[in-house]
């Protein structure tokens, strides 16, 4: 017989579904995230992610503008790499609505004192949301400036109390072929689910965040709802989307692209204009917004301009550990 202690019952499990849904509709129309940098428009997002009143009703500390033109919300939500929904940049925006992101639980395991499965609401309890305006540099030599809403990764990890053996963090994306057509594709050579990882000190760096929103709204599905990683000094493929599993490990995780093509994608994947990808020069990037008549090609900066992370890689040969 299962004895359910009060602490086992999560608030998200108590709310009846009908209430949930009507609330979601209400929130879609009256989302009030106090985001900065003039992004506080209350237009409904392209694909609604969370039903979460508990989330959308929260205060968000406005972000600090970085003095670079912001990528339009339209570009950032219609030009995506999310191979779970197809390999075309327009596929995620078209098909990601098929993914159910409510309810959402995350499994935490490995080298932690308190492993377990936890609902998103409980995972975020007591964590303040803040806006972070970050550059996002894709390994394919394009880049964006996006106002994320999230919180440091460290705040979540600390809740589960990593042991001294925890040297790396491994993240996994949802694996649900019934809702993710890319995972059903016969021609895909990716071994689902998508896996990414960070070294513990990278994950604990204040710049590394989990995002639950962008442009003052909840994260659209195509951008990795309901929770994704954002590591701005690394190529975009490190910033894994729609996370359902976090494992703390002794050994370096085997991240998906590295397994698929080790000569092209490493574990570290730090933005580095001096180390070329075999298919693209990494010396410069196309910064969105870009038009045919104004390509907006700019030089790429070491660590994507986040020099404060350089100390993490002292003594590491970055041309070998690309």
């Amino acid at each position: 017989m299962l004895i359910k202690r009060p602490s086992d019952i999560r608030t998200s499990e108590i709310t009846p579904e009908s209430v949930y849904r009507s609330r979601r509709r209400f929130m879609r129309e009256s989302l009030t995230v106090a985001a900065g940098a003039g992004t506080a428009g209350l237009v409904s997002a392209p694909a609604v992610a969370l039903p979460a009143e508990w989330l959308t009703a929260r205060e968000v500390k406005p972000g600090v503008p970085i003095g670079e033109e912001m990528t339009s919300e339209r570009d950032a939500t219609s030009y995506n790499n999310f191979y779970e929904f197809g390999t075309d940049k327009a596929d995620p925006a078209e098909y990601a609505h098929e993914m159910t992101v409510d309810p959402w639980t995350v499994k935490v395991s490995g080298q932690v004192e308190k492993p377990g499965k936890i609902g998103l609401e409980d995972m975020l309890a007591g964590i303040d949301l803040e806006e972070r305006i970050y550059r996002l540099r894709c390994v394919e030599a394009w880049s964006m400036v996006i106002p994320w809403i999230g919180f440091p990764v460290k705040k979540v990890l600390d809740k589960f109390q990593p042991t001294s053996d925890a040297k790396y963090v491994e993240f996994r994306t949802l694996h649900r072929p019934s809702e993710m057509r890319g995972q059903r594709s016969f021609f895909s050579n990716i071994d689902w689910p998508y896996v990414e990882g960070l070294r513990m000190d990278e994950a604990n760096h204040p710049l590394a965040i989990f995002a639950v929103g962008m442009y003052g709204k909840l994260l659209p599905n195509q951008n990795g709802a309901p929770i994704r990683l954002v590591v701005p000094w690394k190529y975009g493929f490190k910033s894994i989307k729609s996370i359902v599993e976090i494992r703390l490990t002794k050994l370096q995780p085997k991240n998906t692209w590295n397994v698929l093509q080790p000569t092209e994608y490493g574990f570290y994947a730090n933005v580095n204009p001096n180390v070329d990808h075999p298919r693209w020069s990494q010396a410069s990037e196309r910064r969105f917004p870009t038009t045919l008549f104004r390509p907006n090609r700019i030089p790429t900066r070491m660590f994507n301009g986040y020099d404060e992370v350089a100390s993490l890689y002292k003594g590491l040969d970055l041309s070998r550990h690309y």
Partner: protein
Amino acid sequence: MPRQFVFPVVRVGKPLAFCVLALPLALLGIDVWREFQLPGSGLGPDPGEDVVHHLGTWGLRTLLLTLAVSPASRLFKRPQLVRYRRMVGLWAFTYLVLHFLSYFWLLGGYAAGVAIDGRRLGFAEALVMDIYKRPYITAGFLALVLLIPLAITSTRGWQRRLRRRWKTLHRLVYPAAIAAWTHLLWLSKGSFMDPFVYGLVLVVLFGERIVFRIRKQRRARAASAV
């Protein structure tokens, strides 16, 4: 006796084929024009990539169509189809040249100066390094180079001048098609649907030629045995 109807290839067929083959370029032209009027209205968030991809796709498609002309004329017993082959081939060449130029200008990033191994290169040098360093560019460029002599010698004058060697020379279209397909294969990541589909078409077009050749040899042997 009523006169047999002969389809007017020169007066109707060719202008019609020309228009159909020009359609993808015309549609792209409209998109580019709209983009010029209002950025974001004609093409997607990454318009350069859209243009390059569109031209490359149609370059490969028309190249395969060129290779399909002879098998189709044999299959449907319509030898006059071969009269369209030069036009299809020249359109393939046109699309591939535009594909190359658009890559060079819109995606290559030479305008910003490309640094390879930490050293900034000049315009021409950057192009050479790109072709040398990136296998998929090497393959694509090889396909284009192989097609250049074919485009030049596509005229009737050259056909006469080269006589039997013309046919031998124009077999270069086979390695060119393989190189173009390899270019597609090597630039694909995550999904291999496109290389699979185009590869299948290529296998069918090559297969028909092999079967045709074997049959022809058998017939010749049978004829000489009589």
